[in-house]
C-alpha cells in the first residue's frame, strides 16, 4: 500500500506493507539513517523522532499510522533553534562518545526545550530517563542540555 506523509517538511509517498515499522521505513525506504534502532522495544530511545512536533519512538510506530502526519528526523531540513543550541552544547561538553544514542536524545530535547524554556535540571533528568546511553554516564549530557537551555534563554532575552 502507498502512504502519504510529511517527512522533514516534504510530502512523501511511500510503498509499505502494513507491518513495516516507521523506523525501518525512514531508514531503509527514505534513506534517513540518523534515526538509530537500538532495541525495537521502545526502551532505549535511540529511534526517537518528532511526530507532529512531539517526540515518539519510531520503532513502536507502524509506518501506516503516519498517513497524513508530519515526521521530523535529525536530518530534518532547517534545524530548529533548539537543535542548533543542543548541537553546539553537546560538542562543547563532550556529551557523546560513540554517538549512537545521540540522535534520539537531540530530538527529545529539541521538543522539550521548545516547550519548557525555563526548564530545570530535575526536569531534564526526568525526561532523559527515557534514553539509554552506554558511554557517557549521562553527566555531560545533562550539562550540555542545561547549557543549551541557558543559551536559548540568552538569545530570547536579547
Amino acid at each position, binding site marked *: 500500500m502507498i502512504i502519504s506523509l510529511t517527512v522533514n517538511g516534504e510530502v512523501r509517498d511511500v510503498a509499505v506493507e502494513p507491518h513495516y515499522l516507521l523506523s525501518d521505513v525512514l531508514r531503509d525506504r527514505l534513506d534517513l539513517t540518523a534515526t538509530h534502532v537500538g532495541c525495537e522495544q521502545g526502551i532505549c530511545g535511540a529511534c526517537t523522532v518528532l511526530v507532529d512536533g512531539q517526540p515518539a519512538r519510531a520503532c513502536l510506530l507502524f509506518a501506516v499510522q503516519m498517513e497524513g502526519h508530519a515526521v521530523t528526523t535529525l536530518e530534518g531540513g532547517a534545524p530548529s533553534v533548539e537543535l542548533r543550541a543542543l548541537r553546539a552544547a553537546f560538542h562543547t561538553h*563532550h556529551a557523546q562518545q*560513540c*554517538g549512537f544514542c545521540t540522535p534520539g536524545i537531540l530530538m527529545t530535547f529539541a521538543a522539550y526545550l521548545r516547550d519548557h524554556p525555563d526548564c530545570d535540571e530535575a526536569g531534564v533528568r526526568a525526561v532523559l530517563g527515557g534514553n539509554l546511553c552506554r558511554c557517557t554516564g549521562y553527566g555531560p549530557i545533562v550539562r550540555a542540555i542545561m547549557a543549551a537551555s541557558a543559551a536559548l534563554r540568552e538569545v530570547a532575552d536579547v
Partner: protein
Amino acid sequence: MSEREAYVGQPRPRREDHRLLAGLARYVDDIKVAGALHAAFLRSPHGHARIVSIDVTAALELLGVVTVVTGEDLAEDVTDLTVAPPIEGLRPTSMPVMPVDRVRFQGDLVACVVAADRYVAEEAMERIVVEYAELPAVSDMFAALRDDSVLVDEALGTNLVARRVHRAGDPEARLAAAPRVIEAEFHQQRQTHAPIETRGCIAQWDPGREHLTLVIGSQVPHPLRTQIVRRLGLRDSQVSVSSPDVGGSFGQKIALYREELAICALARRLGRPVRWKEDRMENLLAACHAREQWCRTRAAVDDTGRILGLTLEMVEDFGAYCFYPANYISEVVGIILTGQYGIADYGYEIRVALTNKCGVGPMRAPMAMASWVMEGTLDVIARRLGLDPAEVRRRNMLADQALPYVMPGGETLLDVNCAETMETALDEIGYAAHRPHDDGRYLYGLGLCNVVESTTYGSRFYKNSGIGGSGHEAARIIVEPDGTVSASVGMAAAGQGYETTFAQVVADGVGVRPDDVAVTLGHSDTSPYGMGSRGGRGATAGGGALYLCAAEVRAHLLRLAAHRLGLNATDGLGLRDGRIVWVRAGGSEETGLDVADLARTAYFDPLALPEGMRPGLEFYRTYDPPPMTFSNSTHACRVRIARETGRLEILDYLVVENCGTVINPLVVHGQQAGAVAMGLSGTLLENVVYDQAGRNLSATFADYTIATVADIPAIRIIARATPSSRTPLGLKGMAEGGVMGAIGAVANAVNDALSVVGAQVTCLPLTPMRLHAAIHDGIGRAAQGQEG
C-alpha cells in the same frame, strides 16, 4: 624538543562530533549496498538439545527467500575454530561455524535464512521446522565442575576447560603459621556489554578479483581479518575489513563471531552481498557475556592487619563456547590482584567452567573484579580485627621507594602514586569524620577502593603469561603532496575520540597543527596491521606508535629543510605549526619554509632533495610497549541504604586518578566518568539470569537493566597524574580503571553501612531486594544474639 607538546594536554572538543550530531555518521546498518540480501538466524529455544532434524522446505517456498543453510551445509565452506594455545592446564576446544547436531545454549545457532529483506527472512525463519531432543542442561558453574555434571562439550570429557595455578613464595606456609587467617568471598554476576548499536555486518564477495570485503563494527580490523582468512581458506590479500562508525563495543566487538563468519561464507557462496543486523534480543541472548566470577581469598594476617601471605581461589563461568583461551580473563585477575600492596607470599588457583550459557569474553575491564576482591579483603580484615580500613591499607601499601616492585603475579609495578591518591581521596570524601551509622531510616557507609589498572599489555606480557599474541601497535604517517598529514594506526574507534586525540599527538610529534592532521582508522587496507583497540591500550600503544612515527617524520622534514636552506645539519631548526623556524632563546624566527614547500619538493622535485634522500614522504613505525603499564587511582564514595526498602543512594562519589600524561582532558574525563558509570551500572543493576534448564530470563532491556540517568550520581574526578617513565610522552592509558574502582568502592561502602546491623553482602548486583534481605537478616541475627 622543547617546543613540543603544544597540543597534547589541550581539552579540544572532538572533530568526530560534527557528523554524529548532524546525523551524518555511518554505522554499519546505515551503509547502503546495492543488491544486498538480508540474513536472519534461527536460534535454539533450548539450553541444551540434540538437533534431530531440520526441515526448511516451507521456508524456501516463501517468495523472496534465496537460501536457508544449516551447520551441516556451511561445514563444507568453513573450517572449525580451534582454540589451543600451549598453556598448561588449558584444554583445547574446537567449534564449527554453526552447530551441526547439538545446540549448547539458548540462542545457539540452528539455521540461517537469506532473503530479499529482513521482514521476509524473519517470516521464513518461522517456517523452519526443527525437531529437538532436549537434553539436561547445566547453568551453574559450581554444578558444572562436579563429577556427575552434564557435559557441555563432550569432546573435552569435563567441564573444567582451564585450571591454572601460580605460586610466589610460600603462601600455604604463611597461612599455616599465621596468628590469624581471614577468609573473604566475592561473587560477581554475569553481565553483558549491551552496546546501544548491536552487532551487524555486510559481506561482499567479488568473484572476479576473488576478494571479500567485510564491513563490520570491529575493535580489531586486522586480527579479525586474520581469523577470517584462516577460517575461509583465503589469503590475507583476499580480504578487506572495514570498520565504520561504531555504536559502542566495550569488548564485545573483538572476536570473529559465528554469525559474521557465516555471513562471509554465504556472500562467497552466493556471489552476492549479504548483510545481517542483530536485534536486541539476539544481542542480549547470544552475542557475548562477561564477568561471572567467584573468588575466595585467604589472608594470613598479624594483629596489626599486615598481610603475611595471601591465596586466591577463583572460579569463572565461561559459557558454552570458547572464543578466547579460557584462562585469559581470570588469569589477569590473578596476576594483578595484589596491586599496590607488598605481599611476597601469594598464590592463585583458577578454575574455568563450561556451562550451557552464552560464551563469554572480555568486557571493559575484564579484570575488574581484582580491585573489589583485594580491597574487600582488606575491609574484612579491618572489621575482623577492629582496625581502621584506611590504616590497614597504609600498613600493607608499598612505599614509593619500593618501586619498581616485582609483584608476586610476576609483573613490575612502577610509576604509581598510590599513597597520594588514597590520602587525597580520604581528605576529599571526609573520611576522618565518618563512622558507619544508622539514623533509624537509613544506614550510612563509606567505601574505599584503591585501583591498580593494567592498561597496556606489551608482547612480553603475552609471552610471559602464555596467552599468546602480540602487544605491539603500528603507525603510518604520510605527508601528502599539499603538506597535509595523514595518520593511521591499527586501532578502530567506538567513541573514544581517537580522530581528535591522535591528531593532537601527531601534531606535536611532527610540529604541525592538529587541523592539518587527518586520522583515518578502521580499514585493514589503509591502516597498518596493528592489534586494535582493547583494554586501555589506545593512548600508549596507538598514541605511542604515532608519536614515535611522527618524530621520524619531523627529523626527515628537518633534514630536507636544512638542505633547502643550504645547511649541512639541522641544528637550530624547528617545526612549529607546519612552519620551519630558527629556534632562538625566548622565541623563534621564520625561515620562510613550510611543510607544504617541503612536500612539493619531496613529491615533485626529487632532484632538489639531499643526496641519499628518496622521493616521497611515507613513514611506518611499530612500537611494542613495556610488558605492562599501570595507571592507579583511588575511588571513594558515601552511600545510604533505606532500612525499609533496601534502596541504595550514592551521596558522594569521587575518583583521584593518575593515568599518566593526558592527551585531551575533555576526552579523558569522558572516558573515566563513562567507565565509573559502567561499573556502577554493573554493581547496582545488571544481571544476566538463567534458570536451571538454561533458559535466559533477561533478554530484553526491560529485564536486563542498564543504568539510566537516575542511577548515576555526580562523579568528581581529581587528577594527581604523574607521567610514565617508560613510554612515549609519559602515556599510561585509562578508561577501564573506573569500572574496577566503582565495583569495589560501592560494594565496600554498602558493607560498611551494613556492618551497623551486623550484615554483609558478597554477591552482586546490589539490588534493593538483596540489600533489604541483608539488613533484615542482620537485624534478625542480632536479635537472636548471634554474631554477624
